[in-house]
């Protein structure tokens, strides 16, 4: 269970505003975050990961306090059990696919889960490739696998499919759905694509004016005319 009560002052295109989020996330939830550009979707993921600090509030994950402004607790990003897939490809260019995956292992972690992931994500043929030799879809598939190596409590996906063509996007959606089901992951995904959210997530948070203006299943939250697009 993730208890999330955060407040963050942000600068938007239409002036300063405060992002206010007060939500609980149940283990295994797959939540889509939807909304206009600059509304704070990425900032929300960064605050959960520890890459950004909320102005005020609390983040408690399975009873462990990750952030509490009143108690001045702010667990650094390195100590939070998260997986993060960025919008752009950030595989380490100096490493092969296998080295990227091994780099993600913790000091005492056994390799068997890595081997399983390589199997599940169908990466065997790519292991010795350098990241520059991979297609956009392959890069994001490796990024997703790398984010899962440490079995994170929370997987954060920041528009991971936005730069891909439709075919690659659908293939990667299948992989995301597969790992969510197989490992019962708690996932937050930022997306501009209603169709994608329809296919992947159980719940959508629509951000508007610095808060969650609507939440529910994709069908409830996302307008039908958008879905038809």
């Amino acid at each position: 269970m993730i208890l999330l009560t955060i407040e963050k002052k942000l600068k938007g295109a239409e002036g300063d505003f405060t992002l206010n989020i007060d939500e609980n996330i149940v283990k295994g939830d797959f939540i889509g975050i939807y909304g206009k550009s600059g509304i704070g979707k990425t900032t929300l993921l960064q605050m959960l990961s520890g890459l950004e600090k909320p102005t005020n509030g609390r983040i408690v994950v399975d009873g462990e306090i990750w952030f509490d402004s009143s108690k001045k607790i702010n667990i650094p990003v390195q100590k939070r059990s998260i997986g993060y897939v960025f919008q752009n490809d950030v595989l380490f260019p100096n490493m092969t696919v296998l080295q990227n995956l091994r780099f993600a292992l913790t000091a005492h972690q056994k390799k068997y889960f890595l081997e399983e992931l390589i199997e599940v994500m169908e990466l065997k043929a790519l292991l010795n490739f350098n990241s520059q030799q991979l297609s956009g879809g392959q890069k994001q598939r490796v990024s997703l696998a790398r984010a899962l190596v440490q079995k994170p409590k929370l997987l954060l996906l920041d528009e991971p499919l936005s730069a891909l063509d439709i075919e690659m996007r659908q293939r990667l959606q299948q992989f995301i759905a597969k790992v969510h089901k197989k490992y019962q992951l708690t996932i937050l995904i930022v997306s501009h694509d209603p169709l994608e959210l329809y296919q992947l997530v159980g719940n959508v948070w629509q951000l508007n004016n610095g808060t969650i203006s609507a939440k529910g299943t994709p069908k409830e939250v996302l307008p039908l005319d958008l879905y038809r697009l």
Partner: protein
Amino acid sequence: MMFLSNFNWQPLFLTTKLAFATTLILVIFGIPIAYALAFTKNKLKPVFEALVGMPLVLPPTVIGFYFLIAFSPSHGLGKWLNDIFNIQLVFSFSGLVLASIIYSLPFMVQPIQNGLQNLPKNLPEAAYVLGKSKWQTFWRVLLPNCQNSILTGMVLTFAHTIGEFGVVLMVGGSIPNKTQVVSSVIYEQVEALNYGTAHTYSAILLAISFLVLVVVYSLSKYNNCYLRRNN
């Protein structure tokens, strides 16, 4: 080849030794300085950058002059070094190395700083979210991905040190076998109207400088290709 039998190799040897020492010491200190400048959020960053870049715009004689004042054994820091550690930097090879380090600092720091700043912002973050410390991220991710910038910095520093004249003349005084480098020999040979010897030394410096620039431009071409592939 006859003229080479009488050729004094000592200044060339000393110049190369000075260039190697300066490059080696600067790569050790330049990388952390470049890292700090690349990632600092301090409001005084332009001031620090200006300090590092000063040797680019200052006449070498100004640096040499202040070095002489600072390390003169008769007062201040120079006197303290002399009295306590028996170290005299003025007119010594160690002094030349220290002056060269200050004079070539921007040639090492700026390419590495640019290399680090040109890396995608998310690259270190991608390592942090995997639990890697800043130190691990620096060694395993950032440095290997800007090794061409480091090489460029090293090559430029080496070449710049070889070509130094004003600073080494003022700080070292062109003492044969001790602080006499090629550039000062050329000056002295021209003054003595020994154009043949001056020409030999000049041709060697010309060849070295040309080769160094070919290396730098080859590296920068490789860097550009690398960036194009990744955009």
